[in-house]
């Protein structure tokens, strides 16, 4: 049994009028002592995954099991204990409390857990020693560099010596020297008795990982021959949230592009007729489809990979156009 088991994890929430699904059926395992990198571009669900792992967000469906404990079944004091003692969180923007010194920030989880002040202080000094910031113990966040603040944030995450550390883009605001220091520290933390999970969009970090979870899968073939697609009237080509690598050119018929609102109603965005294309931004930016595509009547399309599409239509508006270009689908 793996230390961490994630099964069919799905998170869906309403943003304005629309339903957004940053995670859809995600499954993976991770073992004790590993450094796991969760890789993906912005908006692919990394932070959502870490929020679920740290017990701060309840998934719509699926399960998370850590050391045999179903995190989703926890509530009340048990959930509070999980958040406090089982998982340590390193936030993307450090999120140090500005009015507290480095020592005060590291002490804060301990003091909030009613650990006596002297004990908390001793533990904080010990942790600051581990992250190499003993001399900055009395300094406030505004008096420290980004890298130092991130190391204080890591020390804070270690306050209760949790068996799971989740770090959300820990190198996002750092220069390359600071990045090296932080990564070295995170690498050293992943040892027997502790699992470290780091989310990032920077695939260079995967070189130090024991396991890589890709939230935005790289398609096996970046370039392949165009595909002919025939659709009957009312047939769905793709749904909002689907992953796809093809840009579609309408050869015959019409394709309607629409979004489904949270209340189930449809908002029509455009109708794509023959000679026009759609669906380019998702494959280009490795993002999920942001709308549905459905054939109004019998239709015939050609699906191109991004590379093939650029070869076929090298100049913008070269005989084709995308009525939904501002939206991108």
């Amino acid at each position, binding site marked *: 049994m793996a230390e961490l088991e994630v099964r069919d994890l799905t998170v869906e929430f309403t943003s304005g009028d629309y339903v957004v699904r940053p995670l859809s059926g995600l499954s993976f395992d991770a073992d004790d002592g590993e450094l796991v990198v969760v890789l993906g571009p912005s908006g692919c669900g990394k932070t959502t995954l870490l*929020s679920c792992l740290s017990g701060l967000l309840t998934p719509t469906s699926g399960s998370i099991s850590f050391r045999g404990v179903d995190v989703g079944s926890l509530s009340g004091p048990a959930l*509070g204990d999980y958040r406090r003692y089982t998982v340590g969180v390193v936030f993307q923007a450090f*999120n140090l*409390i500005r009015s507290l010194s480095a020592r005060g920030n590291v002490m*804060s989880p301990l003091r*909030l857990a009613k650990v006596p002040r002297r004990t908390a202080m001793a533990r904080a000094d010990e942790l600051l020693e581990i992250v190499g910031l003993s001399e900055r113990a009395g300094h406030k966040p505004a008096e420290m560099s980004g890298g130092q603040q991130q190391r204080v944030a890591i020390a804070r995450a270690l306050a209760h010596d949790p068996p799971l550390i989740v770090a959300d883009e820990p190198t996002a605001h750092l220069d390359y020297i600071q990045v090296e220091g932080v990564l070295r520290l995170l690498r050293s933390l992943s040892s027997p008795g502790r699992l470290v999970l780091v989310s990032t969009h920077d695939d260079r970090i995967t070189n130090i990982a024991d396991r890589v979870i890709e939230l935005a899968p790289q398609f096996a073939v970046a370039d392949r021959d165009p595909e002919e697609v025939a659709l009957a009237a009312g047939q769905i080509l793709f749904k909002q949230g689907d992953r796809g690598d093809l840009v579609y050119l309408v050869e015959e018929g019409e394709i309607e592009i629409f979004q489904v609102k949270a209340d189930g109603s449809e908002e029509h965005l455009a109708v794509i007729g023959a000679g026009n294309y759609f669906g380019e931004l998702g494959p280009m930016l490795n993002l999920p489809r942001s709308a549905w595509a459905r054939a109004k009547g019998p239709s015939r399309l050609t699906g191109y990979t991004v590379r093939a599409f650029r070869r076929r239509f090298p100049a913008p508006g070269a005989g084709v156009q995308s009525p939904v270009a501002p939206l991108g689908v």
Partner: protein
Amino acid sequence: MLAITLHDLRFRARQFLIAIVGAGLVFAMTLLLSGLAAGFGVEVDQTVTGMGSQAWVVAQGSSGRVAALSPLPAFAEFPVTSAPGVQRADPVIVVPQAATVGHQLKSIVLVGYRSGGLGVPPVLTGRPVQADGEAVVDARLGLGVGQQFSVSGHALTVVGTVNGRTLLGGIADAYVTLGEAQAIVFEGRPLVSAILTTGVPRALPAGLTVMSNAQVENRSLAQMSSASSSIDNSRSFMWIIAAVIVAALVYVTALERTRDFAVMKALGASSGALFLGLATQAVLVALAAAAIGALLSTFMSGIFAQPVDIPSSAFIVLSVSALVVGLLASLVALRRAISVDPAMAFAG
């Protein structure tokens, strides 16, 4: 949580100080208003009990207000003097007048009394009145011994001054002989405002009635009831202003600390602990403002023309009220603290 709260107070010291000074000024005004309201009672009490009498014999149907007594014949003194229960009786005149001081017209309360009898004021400087044309005045009139003023064309020379002898919201008492007062007020007619007595008369001739000092004071204070009511309303309004100042500060602080709240919740703080921190800050600010207010009020009382006598109870009420104001103010920010989603800590 207390340590985090206190650190945050220090971190935002400047904005808290502004609110403390602002609310402190308002609290000072509430204390001063309490002092003003109490001052009405103090000046009436000092004037009435300062006469040295135990009872006032006035005309039947008289209002009983010390500065608005219906005149009665001076010879009423004789049956009062011989009334059972009376040890001593002396006539007195108490009537508001306008005095000419230099080129200015000032309000005074003219008190005419029998030299050596009841109603003699305790002179602070100079000596008591001994003859017509002489006056002992309260220091608020702004005249010293030897200086002159006139009332209805009667020239008067100050021979002594007193302190704390005012009526009707700071109007200075001016003590003259009974004859001088009769000449000024009643054009020399043998009329008086009341007969002061030591000992309470048990029977009186028709047309006269007896009032105790307390009754005279109560009726005199009723004359100031609308002023007192205005002061009370103003004081209530001041409390609301102080509460709004503290609440506004606490709310703005809560808005600025939304990310901190999310992080603290993510680290294990309960909504209750966050509220306790907010309440502690609000109460500390309110109590500090109350302390500033108490200090300021002792220096600011001199700006008022009328007596300001802040009762000790007002300071206790202020402390308790500051506590309540702080707690109420923190409720304003409570919703903000409770509603913060700890997952927000992940936001970049």
